[in-house]
């Protein structure tokens, strides 16, 4: 029986192992240590949800608290990356991209191209995504499509502890800028994770469940919802195949198209907003490249085109649910 740890421990372990392996790996962000300059304990928080806890004790000055100045410290991580470091920078919530986006999309993403292939910017920006915490409209978004839109960035969205560790180690070793999105509701998820270091390549989707009737493409927290829906549907005799792309840039189009070739039907579940989101993007890709494979219209299960609400009643309505996924699958299967 393999060892089981939490998603957030898998992230911590990936950071720990990479810091031990490569002295160029440094970490910076708001309260990633916690307590700097204060009269109490150091490593007081280890990140707002404790994900980086303990690293300060092992690596000292290589993990740094910052002022609440996202432009400055995200930019500093990017600048340090161009000068030979491998910074892992924490943008606490993806919602905060608005105060530092220039450094990410106009600077980091473009250096390689603008400078004629001479720049190397191996920076990782770790950031929390997702609704479900009653954290309201400015701490709950799933804005990864915005990053996916930008040439020059890679975008990673793990859905399990195993993937989180392997993808984060890959992200740190990768020479391009990587946006690493951690769904905050997954931190407490337990799963089998090898103790040794390993990488998962980008652009390789995970076939989470094999099936023959309908393909469900899902990301992050939506993967477990899709699994729940698939279990229920199996009892009705509907066989679902679940594909987790794991990275939206690069996107493993082939695995999605191969699955649709077998099933003829596609449901995409995405927690990002419906307009110009991943569901729309994957839907367009399959419509263009796999039109002849489809036996029914593609179904998108997404939140409505609204901000994330605060009230639990409303937020639960907002987030795609297993029931909504089941309904979409049935609609797909029932199409004549």
């Amino acid at each position, binding site marked *: 029986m393999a060892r089981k740890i939490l998603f957030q421990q898998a992230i911590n372990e990936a950071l720990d192992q990479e810091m031990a392996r490569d002295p160029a790996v440094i970490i910076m962000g708001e309260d990633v240590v916690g307590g700097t300059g204060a009269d109490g304990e150091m490593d007081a928080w280890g990140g707002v949800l404790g994900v980086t806890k303990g690293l300060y004790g092992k690596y000292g000055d290589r993990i740094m608290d910052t002022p609440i100045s996202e432009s400055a410290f995200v930019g*500093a991580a990017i600048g*340090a990356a161009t000068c*030979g470091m491998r910074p892992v920078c924490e943008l606490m919530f993806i919602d905060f991209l608005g105060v530092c986006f220039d450094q990410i999309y106009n*600077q980091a993403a473009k250096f390689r191209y603008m400078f004629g292939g*001479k720049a190397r910017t191996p920076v990782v920006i770790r950031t929390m995504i997702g609704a479900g915490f009653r954290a309201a409209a400015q701490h709950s978004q799933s804005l990864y499509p915005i990053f996916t839109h930008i040439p020059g960035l890679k975008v990673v969205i793990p859905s399990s502890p195993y993937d989180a560790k392997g993808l984060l180690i890959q992200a740190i070793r990768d020479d391009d800028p990587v946006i690493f999105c951690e769904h905050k509701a997954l931190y407490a998820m337990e799963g089998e994770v090898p103790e040794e270091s390993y990488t998962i390549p980008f652009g390789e989707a995970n076939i989470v469940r094999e099936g023959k009737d309908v393909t469900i493409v899902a990301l992050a927290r939506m993967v477990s919802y899709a699994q729940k829906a698939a279990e229920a549907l199996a009892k009705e005799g509907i066989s679902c195949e679940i594909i987790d792309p794991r990275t939206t840039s690069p996107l493993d189009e082939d695995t999605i198209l191969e699955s649709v070739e077998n099933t003829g039907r596609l449901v995409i579940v995405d927690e990002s907003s419906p307009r110009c989101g991943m569901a729309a993007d994957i839907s367009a890709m399959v419509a263009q490249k796999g039109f002849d494979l489809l036996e029914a219209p593609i179904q998108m299960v997404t939140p409505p085109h609204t901000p994330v609400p605060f009230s639990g009643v409303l937020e639960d309505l907002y987030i795609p649910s297993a029931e909504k996924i089941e309904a979409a699958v049935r609609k797909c299967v029932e199409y004549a």
Partner: protein
Amino acid sequence: MAAALSREDLLEAYRRMKTIREFEERVHVEFAKGGIPGFVHLYAGEEASAAGVCMNLTDEDKIASTHRGHGHCIAKGVEVKGMMAEIFGKRTGTCHGKGGSMHIADLDTGMLGANGIVGGGPPLVCGAALAAKMKRNGGVAIAFFGDGASNQGTTFESMNLAAAWKLPAIFVAENNGYAEATSAKFSVACGDVSTRAAGFGMPGVTVDGHDFFAVHEAMREAVERARRGEGPSLVEVKLDRFYGHFEGDNQNYRPQDEVKNIRATKDCLNRFRDRVTREHDISANELDAVDAEVARLIDEAVEEARAAPDPQPADLLTDVYIKY
């Protein structure tokens, strides 16, 4: 007090300033003739700043520049012919024609890039300075920015972060009096940009940017302080641009004859020539020889740039990622 600049240093400083001037005056002419695509922002008139700063630096030190970046590139040692070809959008350019005037970068010489975003450079410089600090290589990093970027939040955040982390970073505010067509007398609410240093707990000084020696000396102190591990400084360099915000700017927001008067009375190259021929053992003939060499270099750069091949269609898709 500084070790005095040697004859060689002074000749080198003059060569850099003259190269910038000749380069920019020529780009002005060539732009009008046609063949240079896009936006071009000229640095002519501000040479003493770039040279005064960069004469204190080594290849290990880093600079981040602005949209008005040609002078910083040349002063930091970026190869001039590659720059000219880049401005013409050619495949032989510093960035293979994919960056252009506003994105010339040469990481080998420590030039982290001109920047099309006002205030884009200071955060990056914090990172370059952090890398130097962590590698303990004694390096420093310089953020050039204008009076326009002096009002950007990124600049404030970066100065604060550099002070909080005690980084070997120096913020060089090149105040040429205009952010595009808006006067610094209006937009910089505190008057002198350098006074803002106090708000970030770092030394701040304003120097005459028409005087190479003033810039060099202020920067020498700031660089030495940074190398000693004592943290960042802000140096405001007050200077004037000889041209508009960009090529094609009619400059009707400037008083008539403003540029003419500046050229006649405050030209940093004339001031440098006067001083070194008077106070140092350098003759006008030696400086004239530099002028001739520089003129030849720029002639060749333009000729070669015009004759150079365009990028290949396949180049459109290369170098987006290292591996994808």
